[in-house]
């Protein structure tokens, strides 16, 4: 099943516009809110061989998709289409955060980020070799998690004081117990096999106040993928993610002690709820000295992550510059104290 959005005014293709938050026709400028677009302008067709082949609703060409694609652009006529059977039933996302950064803004933000690279080579900083920039809805699972934590152990408070000719070290031992309830809301884990987990983790946080109920028109004009892993399959990853958060919290409750030895740590973590959401990411592919570098940009906050090339010359000059400057400061301090500069 393929969905294509036609302009009610001129019949051209419509795509989602991040600035106005509506469907926009580039030819005549017509804007249609997602809720009011007339039904007859949404063409929906079922294909016979669903998993295999889809045809573009606009020009009839075969859509080049792989098994995970949810939304794409027809490579022949450029119309944005949504493969709606891949976003329905168990595959229906419940929420989506629409793009708020447009393609032009994304390019500008990426260029600005490149200019600020302190260790990147000069040729890279100019950012004039952006090979492609693709707006992509990446499937994420958001989890509401409850953890009940019970810890007990021995803690000490240490105090030293001197009296007469002796220094006394007084160690007070306490038996401690903590029963903590922790709730974490909407912890995101990316559900796409293609996306690098580390990269996606660095893109956080996404602005959850902009979460919208999922509607297919949001995807028009962008690439979207469906999830490869179910929420059950990714549960270990979210647990691993909040483990450090829990440890942090436990530590904050025993801050008055110098040392704590835990006898037992009973952490009972339950999934309360999980949501399938699509989050907006700009994928930037950059060509530099015959290598391709891939960057991801948060489609709402503009935060850029990814490994740029590193210029060893710049590393050396920073190292040298900072070292010499520090030594200079030390010598001035020495001079002020009367020790001479050289």
């Amino acid at each position, binding site marked *: 099943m393929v969905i294509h959005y036609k302009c009610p005014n001129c019949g051209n293709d419509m795509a989602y516009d991040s600035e106005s938050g509506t469907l926009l026709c580039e030819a005549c400028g017509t804007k249609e809110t997602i809720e009011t677009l007339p039904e007859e302008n949404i063409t929906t067709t079922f294909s016979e061989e669903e998993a295999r082949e889809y045809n573009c609703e606009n020009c009839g060409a075969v859509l080049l998709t792989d098994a995970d694609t949810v939304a794409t652009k027809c490579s022949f006529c450029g119309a944005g289409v949504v493969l709606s059977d891949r976003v329905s039933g168990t595959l229906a996302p419940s929420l989506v955060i629409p793009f708020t950064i447009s393609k032009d803004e994304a390019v500008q933000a990426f260029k600005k980020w490149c200019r600020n690279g*302190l*260790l*990147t080579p000069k040729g890279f900083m100019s950012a004039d070799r952006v090979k492609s920039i693709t707006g992509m809805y990446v499937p994420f699972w958001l989890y509401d998690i409850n953890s009940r934590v019970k810890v007990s152990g*021995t*803690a000490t408070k240490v105090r030293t004081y*001197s009296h007469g*000719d*002796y*220094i*006394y*070290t*007084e*160690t007070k*031992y*306490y*038996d*401690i*117990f*903590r*029963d*903590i*309830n922790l*709730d*974490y*809301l*909407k*912890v995101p884990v990316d559900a796409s096999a293609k996306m690098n987990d580390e990269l996606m*983790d*660095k*893109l*956080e*946080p996404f602005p959850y106040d902009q979460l919208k109920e999922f509607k297919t028109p949001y995807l028009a004009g962008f690439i979207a993928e469906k999830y490869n892993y179910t929420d059950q399959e990714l549960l270990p990853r979210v647990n691993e993610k*909040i483990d450090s*958060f829990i440890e942090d919290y436990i530590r904050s*409750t025993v801050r008055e002690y110098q040392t704590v030895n835990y006898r037992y740590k009973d952490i009972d973590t339950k999934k309360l709820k999980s949501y399938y959401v699509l989050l907006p990411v700009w994928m930037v592919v950059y060509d530099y000295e015959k290598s391709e570098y891939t960057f991801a940009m948060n489609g709402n906050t503009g935060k850029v*992550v*990814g*490994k*740029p090339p*590193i210029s060893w010359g710049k*590393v050396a000059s*920073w*190292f040298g*510059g*900072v*070292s*010499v*400057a*520090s*030594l*200079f400061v*030390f*010598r*001035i301090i*020495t*001079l*002020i*104290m*009367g*020790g001479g500069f050289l």
Partner: protein
Amino acid sequence: MKKVYIYFMAIIMFTFICFIPFFEQVKAIDRKVYDEAGILSHREVAELESLATELGEKWDTDFLILTTNETNGLYIKDYMANFYDEKIDEQGLSKWNATILSLDMKHRDVYLSAFYKGKLYIDEKRIDQILDEVTPYLSNGNYYEAFREYLYQVNDYMGREPAKWYLQWWFQILVSLGIGAIVVVGLALNVGGRVTVTSRTYLDTKKSRVLQEKDRYIRTVVTKQKKPSQKSSGSGGGTTPGGHSFSGGGRKF
């Protein structure tokens, strides 16, 4: 990039300018040898005067010699401290760079002290080393030779690096390279973007809390340890009644 460098240099220049008032020129005292005990001939006094002036000028520090027969019941260290206070008042200085070799002929005590810049270069360890060289001459009654040795020794140490390890080159170079490495590693680690979520980003603060806590006191263990013994009062530095701190060391000869 260039901007960063310019800011950096501007900050360094600014600190430099701020501290310029501290580089006050310290006046040198005219007389260096105070032979109250009368153990030197006129010629020896004159020669020591000119040697002390010649050597001390380079370091902006006065190398003094003080001898006495009568300390009015004071230990030579306290006698020397009073002498320093008296002379610094006479000159109207707030800081006076000096080293003083004092002899109490009656009790046969020798005491070497160093003030301000002198103290920076000549700490207690170096004072001990100087006294090791000087005392044998004193014991033989070879005072003139002893004082010459003292002047050359002090001159030699003033020409080295300050006594404190953190003012020495090897340490400062090492720390500078360390700072450079930390900055570069920090930049390199952040080059691909940082994780900006904290342990509180997803925490539901309304529902998350400690439901129950118990802290039961069990016992107290006290251990005691003898304080490291302090040096005997005869040796070591101190502070003059006028509030000038010095490094020092003394012994019998």
